[in-house]
């Protein structure tokens, strides 16, 4: 089986890799590129732990093939902070204690950022339904929603 050569952009950096035709983008990120911030919670598109954006669109990287990233712009949790400066969502997640075991956190942050990019002023209900595809077994979601709403408010003020 011949491998596929892929040229793509991840968190703004040009990246090249070889991957198998059936290999998922999640496996490429984790196993070939060492970007283990995206997690596998199910491998079937049901938990959101593997959330990344592809050309600005929120996707489950377990449902995208590595080969499909050719020419695309991929953004993962690793690119969310700008150097030492955390994104407001990241800061608010810490402030509101919106994580416990933390394994859902990268996916939820990526998904929440994508929500706020398209809707800077979501209602609580909109936020809850947007994040309904990101499972968290620990927190009960309350602090997650508070953190997202608070970050949204801060970002609106700053802009």
């Amino acid at each position, binding site marked *: 089986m011949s491998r596929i050569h892929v040229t793509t952009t991840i968190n703004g950096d040009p990246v090249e890799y070889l991957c198998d035709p059936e290999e998922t983008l999640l496996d490429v990120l984790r196993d070939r590129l060492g970007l283990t911030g995206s997690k596998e919670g199910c491998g079937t598109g049901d938990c959101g732990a593997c959330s990344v954006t592809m050309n600005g669109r929120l996707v489950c990287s377990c449902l995208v093939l590595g080969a499909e990233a050719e020419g695309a712009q991929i953004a993962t949790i690793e690119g969310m902070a700008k150097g030492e400066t955390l994104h407001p969502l990241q800061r608010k997640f810490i402030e509101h*204690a919106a*994580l416990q075991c933390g394994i859902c956190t990268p996916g939820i942050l990526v998904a929440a950022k994508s929500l706020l990019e398209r809707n800077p002023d979501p209602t609580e209900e909109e936020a809850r339904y947007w994040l309904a595809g*990101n499972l968290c*077994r620990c927190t009960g979601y*309350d602090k997650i929603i508070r953190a997202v709403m608070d970050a949204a408010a801060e970002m609106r003020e700053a802009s």
Partner: protein
Amino acid sequence: MSVAKPLPHDAAALHVTGQARYVDDIPAPAGTLHLAFGLSGVARGRIVSMDLAPVRAAPGVVAVLTAEDLARDADTSPSAHDEPLLAKGEVFFEGQALFLVIATSHHAARHAAAKARVGIDAMPPILTVDEALAADSRFEDGPRIYGKGDAPAALATAPRRLQGRFDLGGQEHFYLEGQAAMVWPQEGGDMMVFSSTQHPTEIQHKVAHALGLPMHAVRVECRRMGGGFGGKESQGNALAIACAVAAQATGRPCKMRYDRDDDMRITGKRHDFRIEYDVGFDDTGRVTAVSFHHYARCGWSMDLSLPVADRAMLHADNAYDLAHVRIESHRLKTNTASATAFRGFGGPQGMVGIERVMDHVAHTLGMDPAEVRRRNYYPSAAAVAKGAEAGTTPYGMAVTDFELHDMTARLLETCDYAARKAAIADWNAANPVIKRGIAFSPVKFGISFTLTHLNQAGALVHVYQDGSIHLNHGGTEMGQGLFQKIAQVAASRFGVPMDMVKITATDTAKVPNTSATAASSGSDLNGMAVKAACDTIRDRMAEHLAERYQTTPDAVRFEGGEVIVGEARMSFADAAKSAWMARVSLSATGFYKTPKLEWDRIRGTGRPFFYFAYGCAVTEVAIDTLTGENRILRADILHDCGASLNPALDLGQIEGAYVQGAGWLTTEELVWDDTGRLRTHAPSTYKIPACSDRPDIFNVTLWDGQNREDTIYRSKAVGEPPFMLGISAWLALSDAVAACGPAYPALNAPATAEEVWRGLQRVRHGL
């Protein structure tokens, strides 16, 4: 002082940037091999043939092992040595491991495993409670019976009496990080194990046994888990042992993780129960006698089922002072995955039983269920302190710390229970399709391992010459915030800021012979052990400084990052350096064992618990009577963490536990088909609560109290007790269904939309 501050999780900054490493994120050395089990597709039978040639021929496969290929008897059981790593001739559940594939990648191993041609002579599986009872398929020779008074006689003479029975489903842990382990072979045959486990010592013990090594040749490390909930107390054994066996066979590092579907098929879940009850009561709602039968489906092997079923019996009273009570518990052996520990460890099942009884009694009498509960409460701690006689549990332990009278009064008032109940009645009278319901439920949960010897913990603390502190203890971090709480204890003992304390991975080479991080005991036990270690070092430093400054050790104070000796002040770092220069040891171990415990599990008498943790909740729901669809509208919780070590973490535990408990009793349905296959083995078919299910109004408050027992800073354990607050959601659904007809809804659990709909048929048509 750092204790009692609402500090975020210790690794929060790592988590939000994706840098926190779980086992599967640890960079694997070059040449690491990956493993997968070949699984039985049959629930019960005899293996007649196993053609593994196609597996061996598959791309990337390095080796395939069966039970016969193992040099030793590798066993994964935490209790009865009844779980061979790989099936030996017979299979006992669908999903049992038959053989082990060792390959160059995770996917190569899994794909190869699917190529085996296995012939199994299938036998009819024992799946249900009835089938197990008919076959007398059980653990222990007969049922366990605990009780007090004379329940049969008191039932016979009770002014009123009723009986009931319901099924109470199990629960998949759904830790978001699946089971995972990695083993690196070391020189001389030693093994370094990384495992996502709540019980590193057990992993060490089982790996050592499987390899024929002394425990000192195996070192186990766990920095964190992506959720555990009891599901990583024993269920990680198989992966760690498989990796160790494969590492020994190949000499290469080996790694294994379960794919989600495999994880859900292979690993044990919460025990499902059938509960039968027979209750006597009077017209005021006072229960005079109650008898329970618990039938627990334990699965194919013993695992932790005996203590789980025991704990269910120990919570069959919940908050109620019952004069005559009898609990008979059957631990049934079935051809399903071996049911295991899950947050509450049987306590929730026992508690649901008596809460159902209270609800049924209240419905029969037409009384407010909250009022019936209060009338049956144990005497309050305040009254007992003033000389009133304490109530005793069915196992003979005096309840001297009962807080629920005051907590209940406060919660019912702050959540406006009475007015809302009246408003709901009005709503229900006016609206034919959407009905609402509200319910209150209390929790009294016993804290300590019921196996008394497990109530011990160790710690290891080093102070370096620059004043920085290395902290280690036997507890594991699964998201509950244990590491941060313990670090707060250490920082408080030394009077230093939190950034002076380095939290380190749980490691069997640093603290040996640890108990599982379970039974909510993590901070109680490890907090005290760490305190002891810190105090030893602090006392040595104080003694040294007293000598240097010609004073007594009690004149030395550690606060604000400084050490103050009379007029002299120095930084903690300078004090550490001074002690080091004077050749004072700055390293110490600490040890703690819980006092006052004494328990005889066969007779069912003694004091199995150091103290009780309390909580109460009111939940309001709405149901659609055409479909049974339902949702939680509002939840109000008041919970007792004693003097909280960290209110932010404790609130998080309570919220998460409530949602998980409500999920157990509402949407999380496990379905096995008639052949014993689990049909709900992925999040596509097994429904845990999502963000959209969170109650619109969710008020969680900590009870402002102190532990009456001498625990670490008078705090109380918080991991499990609030899980059972979710019972109020199930009762609220019952209340909503009861608004639709005269009969009692008699809901089973989980009360899925379908079950709510069936309940509606029962109340309307007596079906």
